[in-house]
């Protein structure tokens, strides 16, 4: 569960680009995407789960080169558009 996933902002795109640039000659960039329900703590085995503000319209976007990990929470369609645009730019460099 994400404890401090920051909401999407422009600096994430800069960091994402940097990650791709670092991996040009060697290594991989892995991007992971999953729907996010707003939980900030894991469900405990015993006892009651923490209350949290449930969300239906968010996703976690994580990127890593194996060493550096970055992540953000995406919740707006226009953020998705910008993310896809940046991915396209980064990947054109890649393949």
């Amino acid at each position, binding site marked *: 569960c994400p404890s401090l996933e920051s909401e999407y902002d422009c600096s994430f795109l800069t960091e994402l680009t940097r990650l*791709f640039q670092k*991996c*040009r*000659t*060697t*290594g*991989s*960039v*892995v*991007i*992971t*995407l*999953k*729907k*996010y*329900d707003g939980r900030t703590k894991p469900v405990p085995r015993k006892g009651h789960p923490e209350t949290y503000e449930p969300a*239906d*319209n*968010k*996703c976690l*976007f994580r990127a890593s080169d194996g060493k550096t990990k970055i992540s953000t929470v*995406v*919740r*707006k*369609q226009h*953020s*998705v558009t910008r*993310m*896809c645009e940046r*991915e*396209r730019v*980064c*990947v054109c*460099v*890649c*393949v």
Partner: protein
Amino acid sequence: MPYYQTWEEFARAAEKLYLTDPMKVRVALKYRHCDGNICMKVTDDAVCLQYKTDQAQDVKKIEKLHGKLMRLMVSKESHSGAMETD
């Protein structure tokens, strides 16, 4: 885990898996510039669908599907359910 040989089959299976249980599914993209290939994985930890390619035209399709899944995750659950095929 086996890789799909055709993009269309993979894309269809991937969307279907996601729509079955959106909270369980995660999507992973692995880019290797040094080898010039991309691998896309869509899994709910029970079923694992993978597609790998080094072709530029497939990369566009992967990006499109990735974006589509992201949009589905970010929209409210009560979407129309209409699936466009590439």
